[in-house]
């Protein structure tokens, strides 16, 4: 199976560790991934903000770049949702490629059929199901099933987990007061779990919650993408 990694523009630019974790994890499971360097962005930010003219070239570029592969894996639930839900509606020619896109936990659980990926992560961890992972993509309990198999990891439940963290893409800039209030409430609930790490399937939301966590007073909680936990082993910890 020829597998391509769609790392996403945000991870590419700001969170390379997440992409590296996906490569490491899949390699450990016996799968080499390729990184087609023509990839850029799925167009979600422009689409969701109303800049439709900017979106189509990005959709086309995505479809062309990833057409030769049998599977495309991405460590972002919201980008996966954008591609699968919207690319075919924006450009019919993007249909086939879009259908091959899997968010990381979908790829692990549904395509590779694994939940125990041999990870080791000795921390108290809570999981925030991001809105797009939960309500658009319908990841369900896949992330939790993967986390439960991680050795050394103590999973603690996040109260009101399904409530939005307030990131919302450009919403964070267009409505900063409401966005920050939502972020503060989410961060407070994260702190109350006593977890030392918060994980999710989207670095965008983690960037927002993490930004609130380091800005506000309280015990330190690190934010870490799910992929980095799953890639972590005793010999090679994240």
């Amino acid at each position: 199976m020829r597998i391509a990694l769609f790392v996403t523009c945000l991870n590419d630019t700001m969170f390379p560790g997440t992409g590296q974790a996906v490569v490491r994890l899949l390699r450990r499971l016996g799968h080499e991934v390729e990184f087609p360097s023509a990839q850029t962005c799925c167009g979600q930010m422009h689409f969701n903000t109303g800049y439709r003219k900017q979106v189509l070239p990005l959709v086309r570029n995505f479809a062309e770049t990833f057409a030769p592969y049998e599977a495309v894996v991405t460590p972002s639930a919201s980008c996966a949702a954008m591609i699968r839900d919207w690319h075919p509606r924006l450009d019919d020619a993007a249909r086939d490629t879009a259908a091959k896109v899997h968010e990381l936990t979908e790829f692990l659980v549904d395509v590779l059929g694994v939940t125990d990926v041999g990870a080791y992560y000795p921390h108290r961890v809570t999981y925030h199901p991001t809105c797009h992972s939960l309500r658009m993509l319908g990841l369900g309990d896949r992330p939790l099933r993967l986390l439960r198999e991680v050795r050394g990891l103590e999973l603690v439940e996040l109260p009101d987990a399904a409530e939005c963290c307030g990131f919302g893409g450009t919403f964070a800039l267009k409505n900063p007061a409401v966005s920050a209030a939502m972020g503060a409430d989410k961060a407070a609930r994260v702190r109350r779990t006593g977890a030392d790490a918060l994980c999710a399937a989207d670095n965008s939301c983690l960037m927002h919650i993490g930004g609130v966590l380091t800005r506000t007073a309280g015990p330190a909680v690190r934010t870490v993408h799910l992929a980095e936990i799953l890639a972590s082993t005793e010999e090679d910890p994240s």
Partner: protein
Amino acid sequence: MTMPTYLGMPAFPRAARAAVADERLRDNLARATGTIRDRRRAAVAELDDWAALREAGRRIKDHTLRYLDHYLRLLEEKVTAAGGTVHWARDAAEANRIVADLIRATGRTEVVKVKSMATQEIGLNEALEKEGITAYETDLAELIVQLGDDRPSHILVPAIHRNRSEIRDIFRRRMPDAPPDLSDEPAELAEAARRHLRAKFLSAQVAVSGVNFAVAETGTLVVLESEGNGRMCLTLPKTLISVMGIEKVVPTWRDLEVFLQLLPRSSTAERMNPYTSAWTGVTPGDGPQEFHLVLLDNGRTSVLADEVGRQALRCIRCSACLNVCPVYARAGGHAYGSPYPGPIGAILSPQIRGIGSPVDASLPYASSLCGACLEACPVAIDIPEVLVHLRAKVVEEGPRHPLAGTAMAAAGWTLRSPRRLALAQRLASASRRLIGRRGRIRRLPGPLRAWTDSRDAPAPPPESFRAWWKRTDGGRA
């Protein structure tokens, strides 16, 4: 099209900022929406065919909207045959004119009102006031809003932004017959309101109501409510004038049955609402002897012409989307600058009023697109989809934001080419020591300040993923 009360409202972000800073308001809202949210979930979970009901509701509404002209004519025919009179109103001004003239013809200057979204939408009370007619709201929460010279902030619980001690103060100040030692016990407050309203009911000769559903096949109007005050309004006065948006019609009683299950569970989390009133024209010797139905367009036909936006007309005003909305819970209803607050307001007001004003152009952006509204909506309105659709309209036709437009165009240009993206990444990485401290940025310039005003930003990494991949051959080197 107009909703007159709210002209001159500031854009959503500004109004929301003030609301977020008001701790008492946030507290009132969090408490109220939190409770109803949990109860709704339980009420819905009781039915194992909820998904099928919801799908049926969606389809019935879509079908009716598709053949709206037919069902409205059928409704008119049946209402007329049953002794009622049907009036067609193109916009708010026309509807207000019709209602005022009808009231004038009775020789009365006072009317009682059943809570109604449509009459708030057209600003009926204010229009009547200009004609020397006083309208008394009889729904408890609506009464609180009216006495407090306030605006409603929730579809179902218009005074949700008030707590009980605020309500007591309003009653003491503005209700002439309120006992001077009135406490803030809910039972006492309700009793004071009941006494106050009873006098109005007994003397009122004219009532104005809204309509939840109109059954075309028999010309029957239906109102659902909790307090019984609506029932009094609908039965005691001699003349009844009902104002309904044209999308409220359903074809048959069998269709109505679906909504009688969907609405109470979604709105008050009840299996059935306490009072359901249904009437067909006039019945000699029983109830109002004169009945008028005002069919209100006010922008709805133009909403209907929009393939994506038209689903907003499926709305049955249950308010479930408000109660689950994290933005509404913090911004409150007033920030939406319309009688329709929350997610449904964010897609309905800019469609009915257009996107010309600051508040209407900002409403499609008053959402993090979290999708909780779609999940809760009993007629499956894809509110996030409509929001994004309206955002595209704002970008194309709305008031210009030169800075935002330029930034988005520049980002688009960069992202169209992997080489330009790589260059931007190298620049970002080069700046990391300048702006970041221990991997965190506490202050960003320009529009990005909106981010760092309340949260840190991560400093760019020493190298991008693509640079790492190239340098290490994907970690193999």
